[in-house]
């Protein structure tokens, strides 16, 4: 009897142990999230996430790096907008990165990141992202997670159908959303129709260093080029662009650009045009755009203005461009991993339209044209249609793929993600999003090899999903598990700026290549002081250059005299550390710029205009050691008329 009681107690305890161990397995759960969902996104302290997600910052102009499945934010990479935290656009070295034909532009609207590929698979070398407002494409190096190149796109406005890469990153492309006069000129807006043009730009990427160069621009009719995707596998060599406003309206587009029953997907055979161009085709056209490159050795950027671009008229390259009629202002333009299906989501259409690449080639071969638009052949809708997903939801926008024959489309108006089958077009599952989802991302989901484990939905509206923060509430993304037959919502997490598109990649493909520091030996900055013996202060007229070093925990020199009111003082500061994760910061009282945050082995420069006589301190802004608070120095500022000689020292009485 006693034993039985003991055993019962024992069992009771076993039950408790089980319950405390794993709530999810024991019958019911409370609330929307079952504990198994919580476990799926739980990354224990000190552990690493399985995927990186590069999420566009939208109107912040930046690119944010998150871990999946945890949704933890690791870094906001400054791209098109100045960032005082990292001195991006504030220090002398990075200012040229934001130079354009309109001068220094401190902001942009970043939209669609895409990771470089080799053989149609993610290779994790670079991420490209477009600036929408002042048209630019940026390249981020995935060893430093820093923007190393920005190229301006001329003859373009609203650089939206960008920045997607071909199977071997031969090209990253950019396309104009707003057609404009090409070249720009003073003319009546009312004369839009037939006179405004849209350009599609092909930017060649150097396979070795990723260097970008505009190979050619395609001068297209004055439609709005909305989204784009390259052909994959069998359709490699083609690019597809959705268009709207084939009505060529110039005002009240909300109504006037929604008149046609069908707009087009433009199919561009870029290999054919490349051949044409390589054989001397196209016309050089005068223009003006900036090409900005950051060098990891000089730790500095240069900006070069380029004065011409090669323009190609599609009418002069027969067989290069075709129009595929697609219902109702298609937005998303997505190609499945085999390259056979081109999904065009007519945002005002009830159905999702899928074109067949094979049928397209067949229609072209048999010259089954419905007509021409500005000399470009239009194919028959029925001839190229593979099928359509009937009434899956309202407001279809974007589609990604899991590599298992399934497609996932977002629906903005009905706020949901719908899973459907390629080939049968049947709807398999649907899950709500909160709310009004725009893009979605499956790591590798636009390549030949998707990693179909998670789906990230990026929402336009969050309303009540988080604690309120006044009229402006957080932007947000939602993570779904897509390994089962049914999708499962796992997590909401806030994002930086409006998340448009994102690019995801298994962490193992890049984390081992992440740079830990810059080699001091290789520092070629013209103002670097690589040893304390190279520190000095030099005056040229009213310009004073301070060659300074920093190491835990002092500046050399830390006492400077002989600076005068009216001088322009350059602090060129080199971090002598050669250890992982030991950056130092520096800031000067009254300097009308940001701090510098200098990585080991790096040199950065800020400018200070001393305006008042006195002795003014500077200090380290990044807590670096137990003696961080002691990492400080003084500059004596004398009147303009003073004849005190420049002097500098460290550790002298």
């Amino acid at each position, binding site marked *: 009897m006693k034993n039985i009681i003991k055993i019962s107690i024992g069992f009771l305890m076993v039950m408790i142990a089980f319950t405390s161990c794993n709530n999810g397995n024991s019958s019911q759960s409370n609330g929307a999230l079952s504990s198994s969902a919580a476990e799926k996104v739980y990354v224990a302290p000190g552990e690493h996430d399985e995927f990186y997600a590069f999420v566009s910052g939208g109107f912040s102009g930046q690119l944010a790096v998150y871990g999946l499945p945890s949704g933890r934010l690791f870094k906001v990479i400054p791209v098109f907008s100045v960032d005082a935290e990292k001195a991006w656009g504030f220090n002398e070295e990075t200012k040229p990165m934001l130079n354009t034909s309109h001068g220094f532009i401190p902001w942009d609207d970043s939209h669609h990141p895409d990771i470089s590929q080799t053989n149609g698979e993610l290779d994790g070398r670079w991420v490209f992202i477009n600036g929408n407002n002042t048209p630019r494409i940026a390249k981020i190096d995935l060893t430093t997670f820093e923007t190393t190149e920005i190229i301006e796109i001329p003859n373009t406005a609203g650089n939206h159908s960008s920045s997607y890469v071909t199977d071997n990153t031969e090209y990253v492309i950019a396309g104009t959303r707003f057609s404009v006069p090409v070249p720009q000129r003073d003319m009546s807006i009312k004369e839009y129709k037939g006179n405004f043009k849209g350009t599609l730009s092909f930017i060649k990427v150097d396979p070795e260093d990723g260097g970008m160069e505009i190979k050619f621009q395609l001068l297209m009719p004055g439609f709005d080029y909305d989204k784009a995707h390259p052909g994959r596998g069998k359709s490699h060599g083609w690019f597809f662009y959705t268009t709207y406003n084939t009505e060529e309206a110039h005002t009240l587009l909300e109504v006037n650009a929604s008149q046609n029953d069908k707009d087009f997907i433009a199919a561009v055979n870029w290999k054919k045009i490349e051949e044409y161009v390589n054989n001397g085709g196209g016309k050089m056209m005068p223009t003006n755009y900036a090409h900005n490159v950051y060098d990891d050795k000089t730790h500095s950027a240069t900006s070069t203005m380029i004065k011409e671009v090669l323009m190609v008229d599609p009418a002069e390259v027969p067989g290069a461009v075709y129009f595929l009629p697609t219902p109702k202002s298609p937005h998303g333009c997505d190609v499945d991993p085999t390259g056979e299906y081109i999904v065009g989501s007519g945002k005002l259409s009830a159905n999702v339209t899928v074109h067949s690449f094979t049928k397209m080639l067949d229609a072209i071969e048999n010259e089954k044209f419905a007509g021409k638009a500005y000399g470009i052949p239009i194919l028959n809708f029925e001839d190229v249609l593979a099928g359509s997903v009937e009434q899956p939801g309202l407001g279809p926008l974007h589609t990604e793929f899991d590599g298992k024959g399934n497609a996932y489309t977002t629906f903005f108006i009905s706020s949901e993600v719908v899973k459907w089958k390629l080939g049968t077009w049947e709807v398999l599952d649907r899950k709500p999003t909160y709310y009004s989802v725009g893009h979605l991302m499956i790591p590798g989901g636009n390549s030949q090899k998707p990693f179909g484990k998670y789906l990230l939905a990026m929402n336009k509206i969050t309303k009540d999903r988080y604690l309120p923060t006044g009229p402006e509430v957080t932007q947000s993304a939602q993570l779904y598990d897509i390994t089962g037959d049914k999708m499962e919502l796992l997590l909401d997490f806030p994002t930086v700026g409006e998340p448009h598109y994102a690019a995801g990649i298994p962490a193992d493909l890049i984390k081992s290549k992440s740079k830990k520091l810059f080699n001091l030996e290789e520092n070629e900055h013209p103002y670097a002081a690589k040893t304390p013996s190279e520190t000095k202060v030099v005056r040229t007229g009213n310009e004073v250059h301070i060659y300074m070093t920093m190491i835990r925990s002092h500046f050399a020199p830390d006492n400077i005299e002989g600076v005068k009111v009216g001088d322009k003082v350059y602090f060129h500061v080199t971090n002598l550390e*050669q250890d992982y994760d030991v950056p130092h910061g520096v800031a000067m009282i009254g300097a009308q710029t940001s701090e510098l945050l200098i990585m080991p082995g790096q040199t950065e420069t800020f400018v200070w205009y001393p305006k008042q006589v006195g002795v003014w301190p500077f200090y380290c802004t990044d807590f670096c050691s137990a003696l961080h608070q002691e990492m400080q120095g003084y500059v004596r500022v004398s009147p303009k008329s003073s004849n005190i000689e420049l002097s500098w020292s460290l550790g002298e009485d």
Partner: protein
Amino acid sequence: MKTLKTLSLFFALLIFSCGSEETKKESSKVKLKPTEKKVEAKTTTTKASETIDLTNKGVGPISTLELPETIDQAMATQGAEIYKKMCTACHKADKKFIGPAPKGIMERRTPEWIMNIILDPEGMVKNDHLAKALLIEFNGSPMANQNLTQEEARAVLEYFRTL
């Protein structure tokens, strides 16, 4: 009684399977620390920078290093160059600066200890009582790991022999 034992075993297994990862890590850490700390309890009043200890090899990648009789001048010259680039922000050859002067260090420390403090200062401060005492003597100013290769550290050591 037998039943009880079986049950306890069952519980033990349960707990283990519940958080085995955590338990393993913790226990391995617990074991390591005291053994390292207990090496020697110092009660002397001599400054760490003046303490002579020619047996302690320190803790780090170098466990044995035999120095040849004669100094390799070419290596010492190379070491002087590396020292100038990588070390002079905190060390002056013959007087105390941020850190102690390397002059005379060969009379106070084993070659292994010198190599280890250059190659893994963080590990040394954690695991070697002399390195820890030095950190305290020098106001808690940590020695920076300048990521020298073993070859480079060896050259710096050869330079120290010439001081």
